[in-house]
């Protein structure tokens, strides 16, 4: 015990001015590579992208590049396809998040109590999460294809569809294709996160409650849910942003079609940039999406602050 101060003293005496400077800059040396990468590959392009929103930049037109002010935003205001994609984004995000969360929560509860074979069951049900997104999109597109997939035949047999047709080419149903793929792929994420939260609930609370005569439902609503609430709130809110931005499945499965019925804002941005090579307009749409997401994130931060205080 008594030797500890002695060591510290001698360690302090060794601090030459040079060493002190080194100690002060040390953390920055450790974070420098990360900061450099993020700045050069994400922040600089972000700023440049924002400037494109006010310029006429089309890759195929060598004479483009001029400053055009708010022209893109004026076009955007009257662009029916854009407004349509906003509405689709809401449907896509809401349906995906709600279904992923509901199925994920039930799965987490099922996996929470030990049972023989839990390890293997857990590995199997979490497997979709490891499937590359482009592949899960293609895989579900094939399942919905009446030529090779069973789903249209099964749905027709159950009376959900009047004939075994591909829902991806039916404008009124097409959105459910990417949503199904997204739910399948995303359940494990919620299940994993909620399972970790469930496992951090002290077991003796449950024991005390059941001694006091609380049934399973009471225990769930009075103990489990309040304990999970912060995790649920943060996960759902963050996931909402992530899914609203998630264009891969739509690009792979429907490319926004048929008749733009599955076009969400982020796939619309990608289509403008990748297929029409209209970088200016794509950036203007992106800027609107960014502002909406920033507003949403601001609400999240306020909520989080309120929750932390409680």
């Amino acid at each position, binding site marked *: 015990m008594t030797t500890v101060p002695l*060591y510290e003293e001698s360690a302090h005496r060794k601090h030459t001015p040079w060493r002190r400077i080194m100690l002060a800059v*040390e953390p920055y040396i*450790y*974070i420098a*590579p*990360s900061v450099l*990468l*993020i700045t050069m*590959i*994400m922040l600089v*392009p*972000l700023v*440049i*992208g924002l400037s*494109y929103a006010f310029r006429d930049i089309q890759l195929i037109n060598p004479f483009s590049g001029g400053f055009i002010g708010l022209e893109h935003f004026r076009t955007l205001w009257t662009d029916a396809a854009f407004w349509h994609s906003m509405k689709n984004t809401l449907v896509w995000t809401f349906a995906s998040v709600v279904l992923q969360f509901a199925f994920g929560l039930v799965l987490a509860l*099922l996996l929470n109590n030990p*049972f023989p074979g839990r390890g293997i*069951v857990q*590995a199997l*049900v*979490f*497997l*979709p*999460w*490891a*499937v*590359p*997104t*482009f*592949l*899960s999109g*293609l*895989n579900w597109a*094939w*399942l919905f294809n009446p*030529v090779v997939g*069973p789903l249209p035949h099964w749905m027709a047999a159950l009376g959900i569809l009047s004939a075994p047709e591909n829902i991806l080419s039916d404008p009124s149903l097409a959105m459910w294709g990417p949503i199904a793929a997204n739910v*399948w792929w995303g*359940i*494990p994420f919620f299940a994993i*996160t909620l399972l*970790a939260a469930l496992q951090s609930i002290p077991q003796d609370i449950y024991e005390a409650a059941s001694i006091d005569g609380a049934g399973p439902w009471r225990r769930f609503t009075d103990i489990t849910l309040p304990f999970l609430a912060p*995790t649920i709130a943060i*996960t759902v809110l*963050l996931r909402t*942003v992530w899914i609203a*931005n998630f*264009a*891969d499945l739509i*690009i*792979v499965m429907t490319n926004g079609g048929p008749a733009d019925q599955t076009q969400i804002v982020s796939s619309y*941005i*990608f289509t403008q*940039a*990748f297929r029409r090579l209209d*970088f200016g307009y794509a*950036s203007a749409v992106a800027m609107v999406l*960014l502002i909406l*997401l920033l507003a949403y*994130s601001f609400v999240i931060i306020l909520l989080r602050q309120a929750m932390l205080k409680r």
Partner: protein
Amino acid sequence: MKSSAYSRSYRFLHYGLLAFYVIFALFPLYWLLKVSVTPNDLLYSEGIRLWPSRPSLAHYTFVLAHSDFPLFFKNSVIVSGSTAVLVTLVAALSGYAMSRFDFRGKMWLVGLMLVTQMFPLVMLVAPIFKLFSPLGLTNSLTGLVIVYTAFNVPFATFLMQSFFDGIPKDLEEAAMIDGASRFRAFQQIILPLTLPGVAATLGFVFTAAWSELLFALMLVSKAGASTFPVGLLSFVSKFSVDFGQMMAAGVLALIPACLFFLLIQRYLVQGLTAGAVKG
């Protein structure tokens, strides 16, 4: 008596629901495998049979011997492997700094990293293309590695930080009192203890880079530098009737991701929470 009947029906419900989840999770992958081993002449006649009457590996032989998929596979392994190693190195350093140091601007750094997780990466597609093309980084695997590395560093930093947080500070403090520099203590004492974290980070990043599609589509247009997703997608749009071959290629794309998943499976619950919910 009553409680045992209750617990039996409860257990029945429990296993029944779990069986539903297992089937739901595995069925699409099973179907992928099934069509990939169905010979073309049976594809239409045995459309919804659960297993072909005469399975064959012909599609795999074709894909491996007569298509560009082995090249796409190699490109994807190079890109994902390099990205995973680079990200892990960079994120180990910054994760360590976040876990051990209090420094001016730390809150800003956390904020910056969180913002990068929130904003739509798709809006960087156009500017990155514009920046990279004069540098010769389009149509090149290096360009993809740079982009993927930057995109994955924030999440990997949070992940590594959570693993470092689990290791007592006394360990490197003792080593430093004995005269080791902090970097030596980090390298020789702390890093070996976080090997599970390093493995998890490698796995996460590899899988993420293996799956990335949009930037690969935008930045690479020549077949020679295509990654697997781009190769598969262009195959699908060109030969959309060769279902057997497409699905055989799909199964190949699944292999590395599943291998990594099995490796990191144990750390999933711990790792994802730390990385994803921390913000």
